Structures are given as C-alpha cells and as structure tokens.
C-alpha cells in the first residue's frame, strides 16, 4: 500500500489505484481552521509519512503531489510559484518567485522568457544563475535521474533540438550543443525556453512540477544525488542527505534572503525546524495522531486518513481534521473501439449505483458522487450536462430500456480493474447493477503485482476490455490538463478509451488558441463544451470526486490544503500554536 500522493499523469493514477481507499468527502467545511489565528515563529513541526512516499528528493525525481507541495515551500524555489490562499483562483495563478515576472511570450506560447531576480542564492552562498536553470532542465531528460517515477517529462519533450537528447551525462557533445543553443538559452539574467509548438500553460507547469527547476552543476553527482537536497529555499538539510528510510531534519538556511522572496504569499517559514519522520507502516501514524501526545501535538500526516481509522475519528479528534475536494476524480473509461453504440455506452453509465459505489469505498469521507471527469477543484469545473440528470443511485430500468432500444439486450462486457479488497467489493456491486440492466458481465481483476502493470495493459489499443476503472488528477489546475488528456484523439496522455470525435478535437484546439491569447474564460468555455459533447457521446462513465481528509496535531496552526499545494497541506503558512 501506500503511494497516492502523486500529482497525476499515468503514473499517478496507477498509484492512486493501488491504494483504493485512502481518501474521503466534500469540501463543505471551511479549509484551514487554523488560519484565523496569528502565525507564530518558532517550534518544530513533524511530518509523519512512510518511505514509499519519498522515492527520491532530487528535484528531477519528485512527482508525488505532497512532496512537490512541501519541498516547494521549504527548499526548492523556481521561476514562478503558486501563492498560499484559500481562494482557488488566486492560489492557482503563478506569481514570481526566483524570476521578476511570470514569464513573457512574444509568440503565443512557443517562446517563453523569464528574468531572474538579484541576490538569489543557493544554500552554500553562491548565486543562482541562468545556467543553473539550463542545467536543471537538461538533467530531466536523463531517464536514470528522473528515476522511473517520471515527473511529467512529456511537457518538456517539445523543446527545440531535444530529439534523442538524453541529458548532460549520456548525450553526445553535438546533442548537448544543440540543447544549449536551441532549447534553453541564456542571455545574462534572462532564461529563454523555445518550444516547437505553442505551450500556453508553461508557467503553470513550471510552478507545478520540478522538471524545470534550477540545479547547481558542481553539486551534481548524477544518480548518486537521488536522496540529496541542495536548497534554494528558507530551510536546508544539514549535510544535504535525506535518509530514505528514516527521513530528515530541515533547519534554517542562513543564505536564504527573504527580501528576494514573497514570504507572505509563498513562504512564511514559521517553524524553526521541520522534521520528516518516516515509519514503516501507515497505521501507527494515525494511531499517534489520534493519541495526540507529546511531540505528536505538532505533527501531521500528509497522507489521507486510512479508511479503517474512520470509526476512531470522533469527538475532539474530528476537530483536528480537514476535508477538501482533491484534484483526483475516479471514473470508468469505455473502450470506444469495441463499444461503438452510443446507447449501449449511455446504458453502462445509467445502470450503475454511483452513490452505492461511493459507500463501498468509504462513503462521504472518501469523496462525493460526480458527473464528470473534471475535479471540483479545477477552475471551470461544471457537472457534465449529459450525465447530470442520471440519478446518483442509478436507474437500471432506464438502462434496460436503452439497451432494448439499441437491440442489444444481453450485451456482453468485460470489465477490468486493479484488484484490491475494496475494488473487489466495488465491482461486485457494479456487476450486479449492470446485470440488472441486462448486460452480461465478466470481471477481470488485475493483480497489483501483474506484469505489465494495470495501466500499461489498459493502454494497449487491442486490449480485451470494454470498460475499465480509471482515475486522473491534473498536473496543474486547468481544464486543459484534464479533459483533452483523456478525450482528445491525438494526445500522448491518457486517452486509453480511444475516444475520437473531430468536433471535440476542434473545441480543444480553440480552447488552446484562447488561452494562448490570455483569454481564460474563452478557454474554459470551449473546454466545457468539449466535455459536454463527449458526454452526449457517452464517451466515459463518471463516478466520483475524491476528497483529501487530513488529521493533524492539536498544536498545528495555519493548516490549509489549497490549490497551490494540490490540496495537500500547504506548509507555507503552517505554524506551531
């Protein structure tokens, strides 16, 4: 068990799948009950976690959402960053961090330039220079350094002159020269990124991921640096080494100058010390937080409360929890190459008891029923009009009628899902729902240690599957990081249902044009239309919106999961009460 915290993409989803039940409910309560008090300096805050949630601390290897959120506030600064705020629009809009601006593009997103601030320093006192950015992004092309957990390198694969480029260690001098002169160029304090096609969301990807982070060349020892931290932020690890089994202690970095930062919005840096304490199992983490004694009063878990602890979250313990909508949604993708009849696809959606399914997964602590694949935390979220009228507990009679209308009663479907105790129960329910509606259902539970893995099997075009369980969270809070990834014909992302509709593709193209021109509302409108159109095609089966459900010690103040932190606890404003 245990890996969930990644921010999206294929990897993320596979991982989230593996835990099944770890999350929970609705974002109805006001987030960050601690924000009301005044932040105090000093003290120690402990983050309790398990080693599998820290597969590396080299920025190029980090892709877990909780780790990105935390390290951005403590040690790794970048050109731009998301501010601390409970307003999703504010928190989802990058502000300058190491750069003086949020990026300028003269040509609609193909070329991006940033100018660096003065006085920005590494933890050893040396200046952070443009070449550090050039070098940092270049090492993200090295498969060994990104360490398999792959922090979304697809986003930088469209840089000019990077064909066949495999990073500074293994590339030929000619390739390296091409990279330095074409892909990312330096002119004094200005760093420029050149893409082969427009990438209007680039500043957001810089703020959201670590692939574009600067890296000091003289510190680089390649893959040996997997568990090292070379800080540019307000804290550092003494000795630079993060213990993969035990964790680390972050102390103040005296070479960090708050004047070069935006402390109020990005890094309040309240406690004197942060500790990451790794335990071998998640259970004792929550036992300790529930007990709330001694040093654990200033501790928190960045992982969701385990579902088998829900019954202990009552009374005063429940007051130390926060529940918010997470960027994750769960849905089922339909193999559009095999299930070609729109009525059959709609019947699949109409038949299932989504409210019951949510209950199986842990009820309102796990999430809420959704009628789209977009997370409620994404600006521009709207329920898909095509699915909005389907009752949450399903309508097998209507589904049966649809199936009869299509003349496909007894239609055989093969349903795949990643096997776990919880998904077994979930699909026992859905199987019953579908059979009530007249489908003939075969379940295909894929073992967590199957080789190739679940999502690799599902990515095959000729897979023997009609419907499969799936999930997604966007890498940054934008509709364009969700719907096209799953519904666009030619998308390197997650369209494993092989849905294809020229009109939908056209709307996505228009949405990109709009955002390149700075028209956020236009982009949102087009992307919403695309989702609605795909809904009319019944291209996928919506299921639920996941929640993040956190528990923290009684002396933690400023607990706020916001857009900036992908709805993991934002460490930027946290303090010891």
């Amino acid at each position, binding site marked *: 068990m245990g890996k969930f915290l990644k921010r999206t993409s294929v990897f993320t989803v596979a991982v989230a799948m593996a835990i099944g039940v770890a999350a929970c409910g609705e974002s109805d309560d006001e987030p960050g009950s601690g924000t009301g008090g005044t932040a105090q300096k000093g003290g120690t805050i402990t983050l309790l976690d398990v080693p599998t949630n820290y597969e590396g601390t080299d920025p190029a290897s980090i892709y877990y959402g909780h780790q990105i959120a935390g390290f951005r506030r403590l040690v790794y600064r970048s050109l731009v960053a998301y501010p601390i705020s409970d307003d999703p629009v504010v928190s989802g809009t990058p502000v300058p961090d190491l750069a003086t601006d949020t990026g300028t593009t003269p040509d609609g997103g193909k070329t991006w330039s940033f100018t660096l601030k003065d006085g920005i320093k590494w933890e050893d006192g040396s200046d952070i220079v443009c070449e550090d950015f050039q070098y940092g992004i270049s090492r993200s092309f090295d498969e060994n350094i990104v360490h398999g957990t792959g922090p979304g390198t697809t986003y930088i694969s469209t840089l000019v002159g990077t064909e066949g480029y495999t990073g500074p260690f293994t590339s030929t001098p000619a390739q390296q020269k091409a990279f330095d002169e074409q892909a990312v160029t330096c002119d004094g304090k200005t760093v420029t990124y050149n893409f082969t096609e427009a990438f209007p969301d680039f500043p957001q990807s810089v703020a959201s991921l670590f692939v574009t982070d600067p890296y000091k060349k003289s510190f680089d020892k390649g893959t040996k640096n997997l568990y090292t931290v070379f800080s540019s932020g307000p804290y550092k690890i003494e000795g630079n080494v993060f213990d993969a089994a035990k964790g680390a202690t972050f102390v103040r970095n005296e070479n960090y100058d708050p004047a070069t930062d935006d402390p109020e919005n990005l890094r309040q840096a309240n406690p004197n010390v942060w500790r990451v304490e790794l335990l071998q199992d998640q259970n004792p983490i929550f036992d300790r937080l529930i007990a709330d004694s001694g040093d654990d009063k200033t501790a928190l878990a960045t992982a969701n409360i385990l*579902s*088998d602890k*829900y*019954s*202990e979250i009552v009374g005063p313990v429940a007051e130390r929890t926060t529940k918010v909508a997470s960027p994750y949604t769960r849905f089922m993708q339909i193999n559009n190459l095999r299930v070609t009849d729109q009525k059959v696809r709609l019947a699949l959606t109409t038949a299932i*008891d989504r409210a*019951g399914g949510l*209950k*199986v*997964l*842990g*009820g*309102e*602590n796990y999430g809420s029923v959704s009628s789209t694949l977009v997370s409620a935390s994404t600006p521009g979220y709207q329920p898909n009009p095509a699915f909005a009228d389907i009752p949450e507990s399903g309508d097998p009679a209507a589904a049966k009628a649809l199936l009869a209308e299509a003349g496909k009663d007894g239609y055989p479907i093969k349903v795949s899902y990643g*096997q776990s*105790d*919880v998904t*077994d*129960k*979930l699909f*026992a*329910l859905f199987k*019953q729902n579908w059979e009530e509606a007249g489908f003939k259902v075969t379940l295909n*539970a894929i*073992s967590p240690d199957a080789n190739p893995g679940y999502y690799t099997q599902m990515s095959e075009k000729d897979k023997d599957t009609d419907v499969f369980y799936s999930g997604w969270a966007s890498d940054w809070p934008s509709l364009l990081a969700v719907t096209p990834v799953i519904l666009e014909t030619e998308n390197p992302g997650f369209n494993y249902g092989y849905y294809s509709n020229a009109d939908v593709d056209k709307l996505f193209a228009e949405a990109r044009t709009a955002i390149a021109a700075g028209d956020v509302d236009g982009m949102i409108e087009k992307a919403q239309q695309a989702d609605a159109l795909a809904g009319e095609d019944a291209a996928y089966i919506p299921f639920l919106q996941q929640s993040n459900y956190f528990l923290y010690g009684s002396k933690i103040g400023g607990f706020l999961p916001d857009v900036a932190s992908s709805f993991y606890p934002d460490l930027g404003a946290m303090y010891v009460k």
Partner: protein
Amino acid sequence: MSVPESQLEFGDVAPTEVTETGDTVVGKSPMQLAMARFRADRKSMVALGIVVFYVLAGLAAPLMVKVGVIDPYGINLDLLDEISLPVGDWWGISGDHWLGVEPGVGRDVLSRLWYGITFSLAISFTAAVIAMVIGVVLGIIAGFSGGWVDAIIGRLIDLWLCFPQIIMLIALSTIVLAFLTEDLGIPPGNGAQAVFVIVVLALFGWMPTARLIRGQVLSIRETEFIAAARLFGASRRRMWFREVLPNLWAPILVNFTLMLPAFISAEAALSYLGVSIKAPTPTLGNLLKDSVKFAQADFLYFVAPAFLLAVIVVAFNLLGDGLRDALDPKSSR
C-alpha cells in the same frame, strides 16, 4: 493371566479372561475393539460431532444457495452507514442476518462464512486425497521394494522436504497459473486458482505420509501371508495393492484426518496471501483477510471467520488423535 487394572492404558480392553462365574466373554474383532475405544473417548466423539457438522454444512451450502436460504453475494447497501460499516450497535445483527453484514457492500456474513466453508473444505479435501494417493503409492513401493528403489524414493522425499513450501507457492503462482490457463486450457480466474492451490498443496504435502507408510510396509512385508503370496507367484502389483494396502487402512485414515486440518489452515494462509481463490467467492482465508482491517471497527466480522477456522482445525486434529489412539493403542502419545 490377567493384567492389574493399574497397568491398563486408558481405553485399553483387558485380554479375554475367564470370570469367576465361568462365563466366557464374547470375542471381538480388532475393528470392534477400536470402535469401543473410540466411543469411550469423549473428546474424540465431540470432535467427530463438530467435523460431521462442518462437512454436512459444507455439502449443504451449494444447495442452500440454490434454494435461496443463504445468499453470499447479495448486496445490501441500505444496511450500512455513511462510512460503510454495518448500521447499529450490534454489527448489523438482525433476523435476516444472524452474524451481521460485511462492511463495504453489506453481504450477509453468515452466508459468506457458510459458503466459504464449502470452498475451503473442498479444496483441502481434494488436495489431501491427492497427497494421500501419492504418499501411499510411493511409500508402498519404497517399503516393499527396498534396495535402490527405496534409496531413491527416500532421497526424493528428503529433497522435497527441503523446499520452503509457502515461498515456492507464491513464487510459482504466476508461472503455474499461466501454464494452467494457457497450456491446459483451464479458464483463468478462480477455477485456475483453485486447481493451482490443490496441485501445490498436494505436491508439497505427500512426503510425511510416504515416510510413515514405508515404515509400516517394512514390517508387513516380512509377514507370513506375504511370503505365502510370493510363493504362489503373485505379481508385484497384486502384492502391493491387494496384500499390503488393506493392512494400511488404519495409518492412512489417521494420517488423512491429521493432514486435512493442516491443509485447511494452509489454504487459509494462501487465501490470506492472495494466492488462492479470490473474492467475491468466499473462503475462510479471504474472509479473514478482508476482516482483519475491521478488527476494531467491526469486531464480530473479524472474529467470526477466525473462530470458525480455529474450531475446525482443532476438531480435525482431536479427531485424528482420537482415531490414532483407538486404532493403535500401543503407540506412544
């Protein structure tokens, strides 16, 4: 001559003696004597009762499912609260659900346990029969033939005993399952899983039986009736299976009764590790696995499968011990 009462073993019957009144005691066959000893042992009789109860329950379950008395797959979401635990203070116990309902989807716990007994017993019984056949045949051949045949089979047993069973099972599961489904055409899923577990339990369970039988055969082959059969020119196979085998029923029965509980718990362990039959089909092992997470939240659901499993294993073991005592009173305990 009579034996002093104090020297009689418990359950032993004194040799026939002439009573003072002069009446002779009616002679009893060894079988009758064994039965008498067994009946006199109360704990064995209780164990037998429990075992018979389990076996009848196991046999009846598929019928009960068919006529709808029990429903191991029926989903009752309305009996669960918002965090998907059974509603109420008593783990969801009601007139319809005597042991409450399962957290998650609200399937009836009693039905699942009952049906789970069927699968657990069927798998371990089949595996034990196969292991028994292998063990007895190899034991007779080794014991009767002696010489190099005995040596080879003996070393084979030693070698086989060296394999760490559980680890081999888990390690082999992918390969063997692929072989079963792709080469033998067994449909993938629980059918193949069941065959796999049966085959592997049997393949790693026959050695103690073979050793025991070999020992027994060593003494039987020196008896007069074997010598007589040999004189009459009986074939080797006739001597193995017509002359020797009928004299082995006692150790076979005892050994089988003791092997079964070992296989039942092994199957449960494998289910727990996810190698055996998988949910939604219930076995005692996979029910236990699912219930462990709810040890605190839904105590009854956690305790019930563990209790049933413990009872059946203890009952079979007591029955096996009782049978051994009854059939072979001279053996040391």
